[in-house]
């Protein structure tokens, strides 16, 4: 995990690249031409009012939702390709959900271990060792044998993060991971994500936590009604927004 974060100005090759992505559900167009790049080690935050297509955008990246047109490239994999190997893609992309979505019939440790064993066919002992290390990393040592139903929301969300990390992804997607949590437990999850970012993990977050975005993000995108209205590094984004819509949104949430 000890990667070194490249300085933000390095023109590294994008690890995730979206070009003019459109998505319609029936006659409703949710994404109207989204383009963005994520470079290795970067933390990207996507913010915007609800219903602006943020969740759909992030779901397109690991092919949970097929795009209508446009291209998405993840580490050289064409996501919009109809012959896409979804499994190869999902080994590279980890995802954490708003509702944690742990498997309730397995203990916390088993949740972390399942996918590497079932999907990657890795050795159980080696996976268990890694899973225990990940549980320590998300500060849940001692909760290995608890079932999801016995854990608080924040604890469950951290298990969900460990579960994704166990697949050793190159990119992590976070879909409003703190939206369902109590205010007290939001912090513990954000701390975990921040540590992850500091370790050099490439992260793409949809979030409503503006302060967190300002502290952690390398780049912020503001979406509204299916388009990217404005983007920039947090230093300029929060202080010198150009677009009227961005300014109105920021004044409401800050």
């Amino acid at each position: 995990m000890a990667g070194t974060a490249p300085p933000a100005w390095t023109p590294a090759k994008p690890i995730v690249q979206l070009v003019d992505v459109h998505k319609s559900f029936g006659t409703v167009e949710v994404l109207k031409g989204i383009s963005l790049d994520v470079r290795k080690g970067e933390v990207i935050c996507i913010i915007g009012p609800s219903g602006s297509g943020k969740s759909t955008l992030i779901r397109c990246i690991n092919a949970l939702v097929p795009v209508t047109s446009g291209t998405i490239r993840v580490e050289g994999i064409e996501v919009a390709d109809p012959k896409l190997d979804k499994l190869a893609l999902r080994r590279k992309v980890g995802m954490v959900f708003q509702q944690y979505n742990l498997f309730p019939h397995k203990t916390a440790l088993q949740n972390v271990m399942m996918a590497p064993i079932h999907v990657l066919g890795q050795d159980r002992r080696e996976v268990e060792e890694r899973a225990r290390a990940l549980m320590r990393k998300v500060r849940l040592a001692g909760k290995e044998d608890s079932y999801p139903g016995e854990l608080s929301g924040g604890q469950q969300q951290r298990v969900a993060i460990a579960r994704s990390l166990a697949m050793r992804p190159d990119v992590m997607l976070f879909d409003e991971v703190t939206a369902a949590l109590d205010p007290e437990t939001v912090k513990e999850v954000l701390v975990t994500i921040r540590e992850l970012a500091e370790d050099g993990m490439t992260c793409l977050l949809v979030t409503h936590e503006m302060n967190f975005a300002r502290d952690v993000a390398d780049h912020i995108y503001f979406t509204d009604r299916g388009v990217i209205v404005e983007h920039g590094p947090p230093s300029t984004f929060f202080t010198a927004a150009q677009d009227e819509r961005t300014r109105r949104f920021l004044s409401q949430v800050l």
Partner: protein
Amino acid sequence: MSDRSDGRDVLPVLHPFRVVPTRFAPRLRGRHGLLLGLGAVLAAGSAWAQAGAPQLSPLAVIVKWAPLLLTGFAFNIAISLLAMLIGTVAGVGLGLAILSEQPVLRRAAWAVTQFFRNAPWLVLLFFVMFLVPFQVTVLGLRIPLPDWVKATFGFSLPVMANVAEVVRGAVRSVPATQWEAAESLAFTRRQILWRIILPQCVKRMLPPWMNIYALVAMATVQASIVGVSEMLTLTAQVHAAEGGRPELFAPLYGFALLCFFLYCYPIDRWTARMERRFQIR
């Protein structure tokens, strides 16, 4: 046990699931079944016709005997309706007895219900056929009990137990607050049950009650095992009358399957529709 007792942080994913007894959207229509069955019968028949044998084709055999077989089928339906009637009346009584406040009555009714619910239908049928006399004497009047009457009685026993269970379940599903509200208005227990609780239950009881009916209708063929001349018995007799040709078995039993399917499938669909409708409220 937890700090999450206020339910705020309880995940949707961790809520106890409620199984909604969904069924298929009506993709298969009755006429599909009819076509299917007719197709099978026709195919069997034409295959036979091509063989050019002098004997009647399976289709011709079915056409020839259809009036008799359908009379048998009507007898099955009659038995099922009668058994349902007796069973429902007895079952409602038994169900109310389970809900009674008298502990002895309650326990006895519960035991009877469990006994008849857990015994196989065929065993209950044998039970009645062999242990009920062929005639009873009431007030010096001899009433003969033909086999089909005994069989009907035999089918109404499990119906009774199942209806009792449905009644009990439905009454229990009415929120306790309804009882409290009625009690505080000084209704008697009997009044509460008949005027307030049961009217609310009827709608809830209808789908499971119809399910039970479909079960009885399909169970009536078991009467053939104990010698009642219903459709299945007649089918075997027709088969023998046509020389007992083995290739006639499939079309003849297929015809019986078709008759029951055409009768039971609409009931099933109707029940499913009602279940869905009541669920929305």
